[in-house]
């Protein structure tokens, strides 16, 4: 299905920009058109730490069969997704996903641009600097071939003014920072990245999304808000004074600027008047997964977490959620440890254990969120339709960073074709290499409303996929040349 595909894009290019530039026009614009003025696609990721996913347990048993040829890296294949008489798509993709088959894609054959070995968490969202080295703190062997430091895709989107023309309650929410990264010093990316701050418990999540809500009809609340604005203004003034002191180093200035940026963001949030959000409920306790010791408690945590997140996404309090699935606390053992042991010391194969954990997370965390988002947003589409949910990991087996197991749900407002099993591997001599994983990230960024220029303008090949010679696996030029493009067949939204 496709949802207001052409009108959304055209509106962005034309009338949308005009409407943003001339807000007075908004009063005479139809409500639907206003809604389309800003791309409201949401981006939610579920990252499986380590991955170590057995392909035989993740993908459908029947191979994708319809060949697609054209001006692509190489021919690839797809098939409509169906249960084919089975109770579930695959051993890992369990039955809770069945109602969403028409909105899903299972993607096979996207590859990391080069080898990492393991512990490549950051690469899931495009921080490819982690590739080639940095294991055990060791320096790179070929420093001249280092990938650049960039924020992860979710944080790149979160900071982009096309994604958020006005300051939202939260640019992103992050659960477990594994793959979500921000630059240590935005003015000097060479200094590296650090994990994006997140919300590890329910109260933090709720407060981030709804904690600043004020009832504009209550004079006391409004007076208090005004005083808070004054206080924040003065704190910002303090920080600027410190920044301008003479007895302060360049590094210290950066620390102060970090605070000033956040206080400035707080100031803008206080000045914005968020509409009330009916689904937000009341502030929960500060329950975290670590405080949940039984399956029932964990299930309750997942239910509350996904309820709060869904309300925040639906009410426009954020568009981006990055979740590291909490494998360590999952039902049947220590996912991280089993995955990690597999290539090293463990005496036997744990792929079934990993499969149990993948299914557990799908049933308890992914499906509940999908269900809560799959409600009407208007124009015949649901909030889920107008989202891209990405579920995956960066190891398709022990120390294998190609043919990454990926699942998407939602069409990104019509930008993605859905309901397919797409296999991008080159079929030669069995199963050959696929296409660059970057292309999936580019597809998502474009579904979120960024243009190729927006992505390329960041000046890095981590997102655009243009790899300097010698950096990656040995791929043919036909693959390399396609790297800056969105994935064919999947992405239709231009």
């Amino acid at each position: 299905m496709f949802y207001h595909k052409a009108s959304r894009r055209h509106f962005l290019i034309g009338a949308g920009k005009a409407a943003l530039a001339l807000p007075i026009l908004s009063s005479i614009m139809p409500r639907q058109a206003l809604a389309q003025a800003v791309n409201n696609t949401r981006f939610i990721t579920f990252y499986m730490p380590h991955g170590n996913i057995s392909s035989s347990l993740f993908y459908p048993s029947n191979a994708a069969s319809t060949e697609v040829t054209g001006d692509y890296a190489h021919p690839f294949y797809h098939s409509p997704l169906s249960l084919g008489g089975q109770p579930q798509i695959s051993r890992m993709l369990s039955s809770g996903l069945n109602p969403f088959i028409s909105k899903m894609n299972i993607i096979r054959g996207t590859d990391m641009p080069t080898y990492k070995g393991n512990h490549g968490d950051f690469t899931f969202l495009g921080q490819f600097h982690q590739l080639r080295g940095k294991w055990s703190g060791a320096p790179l062997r070929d420093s001249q071939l280092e990938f650049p430091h960039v924020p992860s895709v979710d944080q790149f989107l979160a900071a982009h003014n096309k994604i958020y023309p006005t300051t939202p309650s939260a640019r992103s929410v992050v659960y477990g920072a594994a793959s979500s990264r921000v630059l240590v010093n935005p003015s000097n990316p060479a200094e590296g990245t650090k994990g994006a701050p997140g919300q590890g418990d329910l109260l933090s999540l709720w407060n981030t999304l709804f904690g600043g809500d004020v009832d504009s009809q209550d004079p006391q609340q409004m007076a208090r808000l005004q005083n808070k604005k004054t206080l924040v203004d003065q704190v910002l003034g303090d920080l600027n004074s410190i920044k301008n002191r003479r007895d302060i180093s360049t590094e210290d200035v950066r620390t102060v600027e970090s605070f000033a940026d956040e206080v400035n963001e707080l100031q803008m949030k206080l000045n914005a008047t968020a509409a009330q959000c009916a689904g937000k409920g009341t502030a929960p306790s500060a329950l975290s997964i670590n405080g949940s010791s039984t399956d029932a408690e964990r299930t309750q945590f997942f239910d509350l977490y996904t309820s709060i997140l869904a309300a925040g996404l639906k009410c426009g309090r954020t568009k981006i959620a990055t979740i590291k699935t909490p494998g360590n606390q999952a039902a049947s053992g220590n996912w991280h440890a089993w995955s990690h042991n597999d290539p090293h010391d463990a005496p036997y194969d744990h792929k079934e254990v990993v499969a149990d954990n993948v299914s557990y997370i799908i049933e308890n965390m992914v499906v509940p969120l999908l269900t809560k988002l799959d409600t009407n947003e208007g124009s015949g589409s649901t909030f889920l339709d107008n989202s891209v949910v990405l579920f995956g990991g960066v190891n398709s087996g022990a120390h294998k960073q190609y043919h990454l197991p990926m699942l998407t749900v939602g069409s990104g407002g019509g930008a993605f074709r859905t309901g397919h099993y797409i296999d991008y591997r080159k079929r030669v001599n069995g199963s050959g290499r696929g296409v660059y994983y970057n292309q999936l990230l580019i597809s998502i960024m474009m579904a979120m409303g960024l243009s190729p220029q927006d992505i390329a303008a960041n000046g890095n090949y981590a997102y655009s996929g243009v790899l300097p010679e010698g950096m990656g696996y040995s791929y043919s030029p036909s693959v390399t040349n396609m790297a800056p493009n969105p994935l064919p067949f999947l992405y239709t939204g231009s």
Partner: protein
Amino acid sequence: MISLQQIRWKLIIVLTLMLPMYQNCGQFNSNSEGLNLSSFGNNSKFQCDPSATPTVSNTRRLTKKEYVNTLTDLAKVFSLNDQQALQAAIQSELDLIPADSNLDSRFSENSNFVSQQLTDSLVNVAIAFSDFVAQNNTRLTQFIGACAASGDVNSACINSFSQNMGKKIFRRPMTPEEVQDLNTQLQAYTGSSAKWLVARMLASPQFFMHVEDTKTDLGGGLHEITDHALANRISYFLFDTMPDDELMAAADSGQLSTVAGVQEQLNRLGNQQNHAAMKNLMASFFEQWLKLDEMVLPDANANTLMQNYAAGDQLTMESIKNEIHEMIGYFTFTNPGSFRDLFTTDISFAVDNNLARIYGVQPWNGNPSNLVRFPAGERAGLITRAAFLANQGSLTKPIHRGIHIRHDILCDPLPSPPAEIFDMRAVPFDESLTTRERIAHKTSDSSCMGCHSRINDTGFALENYDSFGRFRLQEKIFDPETGTLLQTHPVDAHVQPRITRETSNQSFSSPVDYSRAIAESGAAEKCFVKTFYEFVYQRYPDVEADGCSLEQMRASVNDEGGSLKELLFRIPASRQFRLKRVSQ
């Protein structure tokens, strides 16, 4: 038949092919300061160049621990009941301050992470605190002064506040300009000006950051910090909170401008009633250095295999941490010990039955005159204790142990596995082989051995301990599915681990000898000092620029009269501790 000539050529070809692998691991070392000065250096001292400009720590925010402790100290102006009431009133806001983490640093104490949630929370805590103070006249009087009892403050009231609680909040005397700004800024608020005075002060970066003033330009971009800034550094380093009244008074009087004056205050602060706080500081360092929070312990009840393997033993993180706390407390205060003692002591500090049983000893009752010793020849120091040895499952992890020693004990990190290895599968289970044999076989390929020649023996040396940390001479092999004992093999712990280049010919058959050799290598001592430097100064040292400080720290903890206690108290008295870098 292959001729000798053919064998020779094959050998040359094989060695030539392997050379890049060895060069890879070797090349790294030659490019790092680790080669020359640490892991492979024969110089057991750091080189001190007095003319070098040392690196210094940056301005940072208060960590959550520091922030909460400081608020708690400020609240001591209230009655005990009100202190509890205050905690209840602001706890929900405090909970939202992100926990100190090592996301941006190796030690959570150095966390300087700034986020939207943190900023929101700091402002909200300040407001919640002010709400509490403004609830009654008594609290207003106690916190601001009698002049604020009405709920409003005038210029005189602000002035007197600035000399009392205001000075405590900023942890230094407030400047006249700051007092004047308060007078002006309070006009912008509606409602109780006393309440907003409290919020304004507690939301100030001068409160939630370590903003340090300087007094002397030393050239080269270095400045000496003021005595009040030094008082803050001392107090937050040792106690994670604001200076006490005596330390502030010492700063007021200029006592801290002299080395003798600083030493006098350190002697006072080092009294026994403060040992618990400082023990926590040291324990925090050791827990993070040893990466205890990353450990996954064997679960004795996981399945039949683990039940059979555990044979009634249990291991908890609490018991592991308790032992480390006791050990550090003993060697810091009870019987100050050197770095060498940490790696050679045969004293068990296991205070609970479970860990003591794993060690085969009685639990220690905490009495220094009633120490418990390990069975002779079984254990020596940190790396032979559960805190270093334990791992999930019924098999040891020699590779992880080896990397842990290389990376964290010797500061000798290793590069990634070579890119040519795409598909490392699990080490195949074979009941006829020991863990060592299986791993040795798995990593025997030349593409692995470049690095694994430095990893494997470093870890195999500890094969006398199983995944609970129990001493063993035999390795029991259980059926992974049924848990049945299949085989028992003698443990081979004979190794040639190349601790340093100079000692590369050393071989060991005893983990006690191995641990002692690590202690005496010089590399581990220097690695420890560099790591502790990072803990104190929030940055990894530059061995050339910071050589003098490092050498002073090394000398304070080495075996020739040094101790952990010396290390702890010599740092705040050092020259580097009172330096700050400014823009040039």
